[in-house]
């Protein structure tokens, strides 16, 4: 038995990986540190709704027109639901796992976004970037559609620059139609705040 064991030990040789002196390889698709690209983020809150442990959160300050997105790595469970639901690819789990930190503060990411003002009543509603993103998506969706005139398109876009309340007052049937053409982008924007 002892001989067998010794043989096994000799056969195996050095089992230990040389990490941290040499980087350790992780499998493709490894769920490591969520890498956030604030430039790409539209502050739509899809990830903060999906996040099971509330590592992602969002606060909206309607008074000052600011929305703050936050990530706390210390609470993250690395499930990648944020990556799965993000409509713009702003957050992706990378291969990095070296997250040790002396303070809680260094485990946080925050991003402040401006809110859009309603063109009719002046109230803050959706995040400005989200609004611009939806308008760009609609441009893309309507491109080349013969049935819509330039005027139609600008009228519809003008509607989206209103807060949900004003939109309802102005043109309820039109809004419903909009939601149908450009779902899911518009659904995200419509009446959530």
């Amino acid at each position, binding site marked *: *038995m002892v001989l*067998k*064991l010794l043989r*096994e*030990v000799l056969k*195996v040789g050095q*089992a230990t990986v040389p990490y941290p002196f040499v980087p350790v390889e*992780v*499998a493709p*698709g*490894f*769920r490591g540190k969520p890498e956030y690209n604030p430039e790409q983020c539209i502050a739509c809150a899809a990830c903060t709704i*999906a996040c*099971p*442990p*509330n590592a992602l959160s969002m606060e909206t300050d309607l008074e000052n027109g600011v929305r703050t997105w936050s990530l706390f790595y210390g609470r993250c*469970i*690395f*499930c*990648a*639901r944020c990556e*799965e639901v993000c409509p713009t690819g702003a957050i992706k*789990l990378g291969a990095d796992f070296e997250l040790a930190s002396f303070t809680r503060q260094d485990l946080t990411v925050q991003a402040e976004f401006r809110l859009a003002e309603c063109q009719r009543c002046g109230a803050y509603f959706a995040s400005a970037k989200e609004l611009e993103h939806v308008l760009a998506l609609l441009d893309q969706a309507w491109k080349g559609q013969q049935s819509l005139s330039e005027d139609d398109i600008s009228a519809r876009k003008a509607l989206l620059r209103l807060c949900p309340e004003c939109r309802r007052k102005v043109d309820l049937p039109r809004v419903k139609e909009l939601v149908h053409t450009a779902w899911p982008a518009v659904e995200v924007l419509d009446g959530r705040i």
Partner: protein
Amino acid sequence: MMLRPEEKTQRGQRYVQALRQQFGTIIQEETWQAPEQVTLTVDLNSLPAVVDAAYHQHGGWLSVVAGNDERPLNGHFALYYVLSVEGDETHNGSEPESCYLIVRALVPPNKPEFPAVTPRVPAAVWYEREVRDMFGLQPVGLPDERRLVLPDDWPADLHPLRKDAMDYRYRPAPETEDETYEFFDVQGEGVLQIPLGPLHITSDEPGHFRLFVDGEHIIDADYRLFYVHRGMEKLAETRMTYDQVTFLADRICGICGYAHNVAYSNSIERALGISIPERAHYIRTILLEVERLHSHLLNLGLACHFVGFDTGFMQFFRVREKSMKMAELLTGTRKTYGMNLIGGVRRDILKEQRLQTLQWCKELRQEVSDLVGMLLETPNIVQRTQNVGRLEPQVAREYSPVGPTLRGSGFPRDIRVIHPYSAYDRVPWKLTYKDGCDVLARTLIRAEEFFESLSMVERCLDTMPDGPILTEGFNYTPHRYALGYVEAPRGEDIHWSMLGDNQKLYRWRCRASSYNNWPSLRYMLQNNTISDAPLIVASIDPCYSCTERVTVVDVRKKDVKIVPYKELERYCRERKDSPLKA
């Protein structure tokens, strides 16, 4: 594919009919949740008699008991005693048939008590203590009046799972700075107590043991667990939506989390009648077996450690890393976490992953069979484990333990066979059981199951059907409920889920396999020497293998001595210099 075409007929009709004949109008209502799940609502006073009949006359095993505050729904509290009814010889000649039979009784809120089932079916003891803690329902006739789940510093009349009790975030100030749990007081000449609590180098969960000994001889044992009670059942009913709970279910157990995840997903999929794609069933099966691989390697490593073969322990942990890499490759994490959605799985297995996994299976088979060979050739393995920690079949039958703990006492009982789920009735595989009733039998079962798991992973990878891995676009219906069940590495994990309004669960009862194994541990420890205690505890592969210190109570010397757990473990390995001497 929860409703399989061949399963449209309801299984277990014969037991329902037999019970109806015996109990007549006591059975007030019969509802079927799935082809193998039936709930019988019975008169509260006859609850113990019906559970007893299902358990003892129809080959029932107690899987879980769920309390439920249904006052907002029907004005009452409800109790659900879930039995896996598997029949016995009385149905001679006919094919064996098994189903989950759930005995339900309503408890009026103005008289929150129910007749305890424990005196007739001892397996109910922990469940009834838990129902008292969480719902404030008094089991009349239950001899054990101690808390089970709630911490000592929790207010007396606050029952967290009552719907009107409190917000899930409510944290009352600690009531006490002392630990006030009352352990058994074993009287008699020379009984001695051992507190053994909460931390150790190989341990998972904290717990506290008390052994009663006469000299070196254990005459009884008591333990307190639930140091880890966090309140996840309440969390699932409040902050989370039902489709987020899969990620919480993972975190019931750091070793068999995926088994819980599948059990939970199955319960919801059954309740909502969702068919999940065939390929998803196969992927779930593969991952469940990968989980069994690393779990059993952990336990085999510990077996080496406890018999003093530490080199073997290190070798098992070395090869275990390959199964962890396999998990990382297939799921993106080493813990098979976060892989299920309601309706299927989140990741496919493409060629690259398939070939690599097959390759690693081949390597693992070779490496582990070498190591197991070595372990069995270790001169003292048989000597240390044979006839040690005996779980007699009749004790096992009364306490409904699960998994290798039960299969080591001669019962060929495995949920994968009795209530097949995922792909277990689609790929061939072999069930392992032994009748040694001892630590050796339980260890050998794990070793054999390891190789069977490897074969199952290979078979599933080879025969995986095409098609999607996720079903989308199903309808959500509140207040439906159903069971989900999985044979985890340690035995049956079972989840009872009821859906509620606003995409949230109304009630989630999850029961981990070790929960059913702990109560019978007391009997395994009795009549052994204290040097074998760590070995015996490890042999049920509890969701924690040891504790920090042991109170040894010597019945003859009337002496109480606290032995550091480490010391007891050393004694287990070396078997010399008893810590009780001097």
